[in-house]
């Protein structure tokens, strides 16, 4: 029995090494794996699975999703940085790609040098919510409240480096106050305590908040993007509410390892752009309170530009807050 097993394992290894030596012309000749550096079931995983399903149809090969969670997404990203640049191992990472170089003072990879950008996928807006009985009723009132009583307000986040942590840092930076930060292990327990009235404020992705806002379980103040949301049309933007500095969205990008063949990049980029126009993808994204990246955004140049500018944006904010992940 063991001999059979060993033989089977050997065959698999041989088959895998043989297939990776394919050229760009007949790409893709085998299934493609997109690494999601977070656990299954989360917002990034959902976005990836929706896009992967559509890309599978277009490329004529299965596009598989592999979850490599841990260490704020740096484990999965590091794995793709080290992978062979054959186009069969890709990475779908969010805003954390731009904050990792500052949050982690000893990072094994360089987001700008160790990856080939393929295109932006989507930018998920964030919403500022509070427990139902929190005093301020409008965004303007909230700003006034935080300026005077901010130091006694509790702010929940989903852990160091999470989108809610970043939004919290940006909010405190914009207002010049230091709130009491209450970290949780993930977005779900943070939202639970907002609904239970245990903690005051939370800023999180629409994927995690829209239904609770619609159900009247939490009080919503504003959306952190310049445009209002189609799914929550009554919710003002931070720009309208005199806090334009609180402009943040959880942008997601598709990458390959550094040195990916330009022909493969072009194929993947075209397939991504096509997937983002897929009606099912559009509809599902809309239900999540987000929209697919536009044709101009779903390009290597746009992703590289976003990544570069975001690294520069977050570095001083994280350094000022002094909250590191290692």
């Amino acid at each position: 029995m063991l001999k059979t097993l060993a033989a089977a394992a050997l065959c698999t290894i041989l088959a895998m090494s043989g297939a990776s030596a394919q050229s760009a012309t007949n790409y893709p000749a085998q299934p493609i794996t997109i690494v999601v550096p977070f656990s299954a079931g989360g917002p990034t995983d959902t976005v990836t699975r929706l896009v992967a399903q559509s890309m599978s149809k277009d490329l004529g090969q299965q596009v598989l999703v592999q979850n490599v969670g841990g260490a704020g997404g740096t484990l999965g990203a590091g794995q793709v940085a080290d992978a062979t640049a054959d186009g069969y191992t890709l990475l779908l990472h969010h805003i954390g790609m731009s904050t990792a170089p500052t949050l982690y003072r000893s990072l094994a990879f360089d987001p700008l040098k160790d990856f080939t950008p393929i295109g932006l996928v989507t930018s998920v807006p964030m919403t500022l919510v509070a427990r139902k009985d929190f005093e301020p009723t409008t965004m303007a009132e909230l700003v006034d409240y935080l300026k005077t009583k901010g130091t006694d307000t509790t702010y929940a986040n989903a852990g160091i480096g999470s989108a809610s942590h970043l939004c919290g840092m940006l909010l405190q930076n914009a207002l010049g106050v230091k709130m009491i930060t209450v970290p949780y292990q993930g977005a779900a327990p943070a939202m639970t305590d907002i609904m239970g009235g245990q903690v005051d404020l939370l800023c999180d992705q629409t994927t995690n908040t829209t239904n609770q806002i619609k159900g009247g379980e939490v009080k919503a103040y504003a959306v952190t993007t310049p445009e209002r949301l189609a799914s929550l049309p009554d919710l003002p933007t931070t720009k309208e509410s005199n806090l334009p500095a609180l402009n943040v969205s959880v942008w997601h990008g598709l990458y390959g390892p550094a040195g990916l063949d330009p022909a493969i990049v072009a194929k993947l980029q075209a397939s991504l752009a096509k997937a983002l126009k897929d009606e099912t993808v559009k509809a599902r994204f809309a239900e999540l309170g987000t929209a697919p990246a536009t044709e101009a955004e779903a390009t290597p140049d746009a992703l590289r530009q976003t990544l570069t500018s975001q690294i520069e944006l977050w570095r001083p904010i994280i350094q000022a807050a002094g909250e590191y992940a290692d």
Partner: protein
Amino acid sequence: MDLLSHLALGFETAFTVTNLLWCFVGVLLGTLVGVLPGIGPTATIAMLLPITFTFAPVTALIMLSGIYYGAQYGGSTTAILINLPGESSSAVTAIDGYQMARKGRAGAALATAALGSFFAGSVATLILAIAAPPLARVALNFGAADYFALLVLGLLVSISLAHGSVLKALAMIALGLLLGTVGQDVTSGTPRFTLGFRELYGGINFVSLAVGVFGVAEIFRNLENERTREVGVSRVTNLWLTRADFRAIAAPVLRGTAVGSLLGILPGGGHVLSSFASYSMEKNLAADKSAFGHGAIQGVAGPESANNAAAQTSFIPLLTLGIPAHPVMALIVGAFILQGITPGPNVINDQPALFWGIIASMWIGNTMLVILNLPLIGLWVKMLTIPYRVLFPAIVIFASIGCYSINNNPFDVYAIAVSGVVGYALIRLGCEPAPLLLGFVLGPLLEENLRRAMILSRGDPLVFFQRPISATLLALGLICIVLAALPSIRRKRDTVFVEED
């Protein structure tokens, strides 16, 4: 009555050929992955998510839920037969279940687990149907301070998990707490005891630790001496329960169902406590406490019922508030979203067919499971007649694949090897692994909630006594200590914790 019309709608939805078929596929897969050591429902649901794209939402969710509660049935099988628990709940089942198997009563243990699970699953589903929204409201009142108090109470009463020396049990809990601190600190982000490995940021994988200290350590022990290796497990006398057995398990099953249903509702880790709590309860209530740890059937009946009841009621926060209580629930949220439904307070009203369909399918699924599992008992027990030299490499291989498949993290496989050696050393030292696992599971929760409660109270420790829930729970804990310390009861306790050497 509203409930009846809702249930009628639910059964109408669940009783279509497609939904029945996929419900069966779900529970069958669940049982199988539960039986395979290491491979749990998390990995299976993650792998099957893409397949469910093409299904109607209700069909997809019926199948995925089936995998989850089906795995609760299957998970006890390996715990009983080969001392290999696949998750925290079955770690408790392994204590007495495996001893029953060693005494040739594997069949009775498996039957108890299946029947207890069926009863608990059905009752908990009824609770879910009748009172999900109000119960979810109650659960929301649990703050960090209350969770802390609950966990303290849990640790206090569970000292009784040990059947040997109390001192050694305390040492094992402490060791478990320490192992639980490995990884990135939730509050400050500081990595602790990670030795520079980013793979350890998420902490030591529970399944690896459980497979190592229970299963692999047991393999080492069995291989110690080829000649005297026990063959006792393959002696199976009776596959079914005797009349006396039925009488013995009735009350534990009822109590386990109650405890599990209550704890399962709490989204902050209640389900983890359920089987530990039930085991402690049964041991403390039992007339003959010395049987625990040596194959007491109550030690299988209570925890198995509790864990299944909790599995069912942990759907309450998800379906009524959109809050996943644990990683499997988070995956099911993912499944909802991929189907275009965001789980939340609106699901009951906006999607009644979906909500009640899932509930109805749980009864159907539980019935299928008990029909499926009872005849399988004979088959599982026959597995024990496989020569050990074939069985143990297979166990190790499956466990390694299973642990790796959760996060694709090689460190999870290394952890099996290391904790196997540690577990073997502990067996030689006469220490038991169950309290260690309890400390490991509860430690991080305890610390996280303590620190969060202190942050929220602006550093005022009195918060634990000011909040009614936490004050009550801590008072209960105090009563436990006082009772334990009273001299008269002390004498009685000494007979409970007889040193066995």
